C-alpha cells in the first residue's frame, strides 16, 4: 500500500461521481485548466518558433498516445506506428482533394480509415505475441511504406501530395498562429478522449488483457476482440496525428514515414512512461525539446575556449546527435519507468516534506 494518494486532508468524497474523476484532486484539475488557458493566450507572447514546436508536440503527442494505448495499456507492440501516421496524412489529403470533403471532416475520417488499415494489419496481433508480433508489425511498416511509393492515385507517388489548410467558416488556418489553436484543441480533445476511454469499460478491458490475459478471458473479456480493437484505436490516433501533420505542412511526402519514425514514437512512449496518459505527453515534450535544448547548449560552447577548437566547431551537429543518444541511454538506465513515474515520486516527496514518511 505504498501508493500515496494526493488527496489533502478533509477532501472527502460523498458520491461515486465525485470519486470517479479524471483528475485526482481539485487542485490538479484547476492547474490543468489554468495551463490550457495560458496555452490559449500563448500566441500573444511567443513567436513563431515556439508555436512551431508546440504544433509539433501536438500532432506527435496525439499519435504517441495511440501507441501508448497499444503498448502501454494493452501490452502489445508495434513497430509500424510511423507508417500509420503517414497513412493518416495521405488519407486526409486524398479525401480532401478527391472527394472535396472539407478538411475538418477529413481529419476524423482519415482517423477511421487508418483505424481500418491498422486493424487489418493488427489481425495477427490477436494470435501472436511479443517479439513475433514486433516482426509482424515491422512487415506492416514496410508494406505501407512501399504502398506510399507505388499508389500514385493515393499519395501522388514520388511527387507527394498537396494538403489544403484547415478551413472553417471561410477562414483558412494556414499560419502557425492560427493552426496553433487547431493543434491545441485537437491535443486537449484527444487526451480527454483517452482519459475517458481508460476509465470506462473498454479501457479497463485493455489493461486486464495486458496484466493477465487468461483471467481476463475468464472474466468475460473477449481477448481477440480487444487485442484487435487496441490496434484499431492506436491507428486511429496515429491517423488523426498524421492528418494534422499533413494539413499543417500543406504537403505530404512519402519519405518521412520510415521505421525511424516508428522507433521515435516508441522512444517517446517508453521515456514518458508506459501505461500513463500524462507520461505520453511528457515523453513527447522531452523528445521534441531535447534537440532544441542541446542545440542551445552546443551553441553556448562557442563562447568558451574549448569551443574555438576546429574539431568542435566543425562537429557541432554530430555532438548534438550524440548527446541526444547519450541522454536517452542515461534516461533508460536511471528512470526505466518513465517520466510519469519520476513525476509521481517528486510529488510524493513534496507531499510529506520535510518528513520522510
Amino acid at each position, binding site marked *: *500500500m*505504498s*501508493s500515496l*494518494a494526493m488527496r489533502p486532508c478533509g477532501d472527502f468524497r460523498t458520491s*461515486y*461521481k465525485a470519486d*470517479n474523476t479524471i483528475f485526482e484532486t481539485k487542485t490538479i484539475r484547476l492547474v490543468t485548466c489554468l495551463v490550457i488557458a495560458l496555452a490559449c493566450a500563448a500566441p500573444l507572447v511567443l513567436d513563431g518558433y515556439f508555436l512551431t514546436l508546440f504544433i509539433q508536440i501536438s500532432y506527435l503527442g496525439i499519435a504517441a498516445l495511440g501507441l501508448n494505448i497499444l503498448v502501454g495499456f494493452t501490452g502489445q507492440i508495434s513497430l509500424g506506428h510511423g507508417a500509420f501516421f503517414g497513412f493518416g496524412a495521405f488519407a486526409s489529403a486524398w479525401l480532401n482533394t478527391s472527394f472535396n470533403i472539407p478538411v475538418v471532416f477529413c481529419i476524423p475520417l482519415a482517423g477511421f480509415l487508418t483505424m481500418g488499415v491498422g486493424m487489418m494489419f493488427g489481425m495477427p496481433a490477436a494470435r501472436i505475441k511479443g517479439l513475433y508480433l514486433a516482426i509482424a508489425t515491422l512487415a506492416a511498416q514496410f508494406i505501407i511504406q512501399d504502398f506510399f511509393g507505388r499508389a500514385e492515385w493515393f499519395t501522388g507517388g514520388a511527387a507527394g501530395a498537396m494538403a489544403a489548410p484547415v478551413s472553417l467558416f471561410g477562414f483558412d488556418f494556414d499560419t502557425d498562429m492560427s493552426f496553433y489553436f487547431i493543434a491545441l484543441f485537437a491535443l486537449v480533445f484527444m487526451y*480527454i*478522449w*483517452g482519459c*475517458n*476511454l481508460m*476509465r*470506462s*469499460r*473498454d*479501457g*479497463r*478491458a485493455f*489493461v*486486464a488483457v*495486458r*496484466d*493477465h490475459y*487468461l*483471467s*481476463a*478471458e*475468464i*472474466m*468475460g*473479456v*473477449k*481477448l481477440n476482440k480487444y487485442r484487435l*480493437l487496441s490496434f484499431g*484505436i492506436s491507428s486511429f490516433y496515429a491517423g488523426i496525428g498524421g492528418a494534422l501533420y499533413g494539413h499543417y505542412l500543406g504537403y505530404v511526402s512519402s519519405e518521412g514515414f520510415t521505421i525511424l519514425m516508428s522507433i521515435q514514437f516508441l522512444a517517446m512512449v517508453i521515456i514518458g512512461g508506459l*501505461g500513463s496518459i500524462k507520461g505520453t505527453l511528457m515523453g513527447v515534450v522531452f523528445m521534441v525539446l531535447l534537440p532544441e535544448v542541446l542545440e542551445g547548449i552546443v551553441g553556448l560552447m562557442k563562447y568558451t575556449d574549448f569551443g574555438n577548437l576546429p574539431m568542435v566547431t566543425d562537429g557541432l551537429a554530430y555532438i548534438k546527435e550524440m548527446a541526444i543518444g547519450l541522454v536517452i541511454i542515461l534516461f533508460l538506465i536511471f528512470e526505466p519507468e518513465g517520466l510519469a513515474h519520476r513525476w509521481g515520486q517528486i510529488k510524493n516527496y513534496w507531499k510529506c516534506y520535510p518528513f520522510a514518511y
Partner: protein
Amino acid sequence: MKDTILTVDQISLAFGGVKALTDVSFEVERGAVFSIIGPNGAGKTSMLNSISGRYRPQKGTIHFDNQDVTHLRPNARADLGIGRTFQNLALFGHMSVLDNIMVGRHHLMKNNWLTGPLYWASPAQKEELTHRRQVEEIIDFLDISHVRKSIAGTLSYGLRKRVELARAMALNPKLILLDEPMAGMNLEEKEDMARYILDLNEEFGITVVMIEHDMGVVMDISHEVMVLDFGKKLISGLPEAVMADEHVRQAYLGLEDDEQLQEVG
C-alpha cells in the same frame, strides 16, 4: 426431482500421453457447496479449468443451467454466469482493487470504445456509477473497503485472495468455482474465508464448487464432496460418507493417519 445447475458427463482430458481426467461425471445441485478433494496431481484444477473453459476436454459434455457449454469460449461462459478464482493469484496486478472488481462487471456493461470516451455525453457515466454502486456492495461484504484504491499487486496474500473472490462475485455468477480459496492462510483468515463462502452461498444464492485441502473446512461447509485420484473419480456423496470410505482413506488421507482422521471426524 433434483435441480442441478451443473452436469459433467464422462469428461476425459489428456495432455499428450498424460491422462489428467478419465471419464469423470458428476452433478452439482443448485445452491449447494460442492467440494472436490484429492491428492496433488489428481486433476482437480484440470476439472475446474474444463468447467471454466480454459481446457477443452477431448471427450464428454458439460451442461450448465440446461445448456451445453462444452464448446463455448471462457468469456462466453462468464456471460452465462460461471465465475472463478485461481489457485495462483491471477489479479490484474497494476490495476487498483476497484478497477479489478469493475472488470468483473465487464459482461454486464454496454458502453464501448466510442461511447465510453464521450463519458459525459453518453450513458457511460451513468453506467459506471450504477455498477460502481453494486461493486461497492461486494467490497462492503468482503470487508476490503480500506484497500479499494490500492494497487492490487501491492496487497498481502490474504487480501489478494479476497479481492479475487470479489472480482469473481462481481460477475453476478450463478456458479462460482473456487480453486483452493484458503491455501496459505492462517487459521483466522481461513475462518473468515469460510464465513464468506457460506454467506455468498446462502445470502447471494450462488452455487459453489470448491477445491480445498483443509479437510476441516471441507467437512464443515460442504454439502457434497467428490474425491478425485489419478484423474478418476473415486466417490462422491455426503462428507461423512466420503470420509468413511476405505479407498479415500487410502488414496488421500493415508491409512496410518488415524489420529488425524479422528480429529477431522
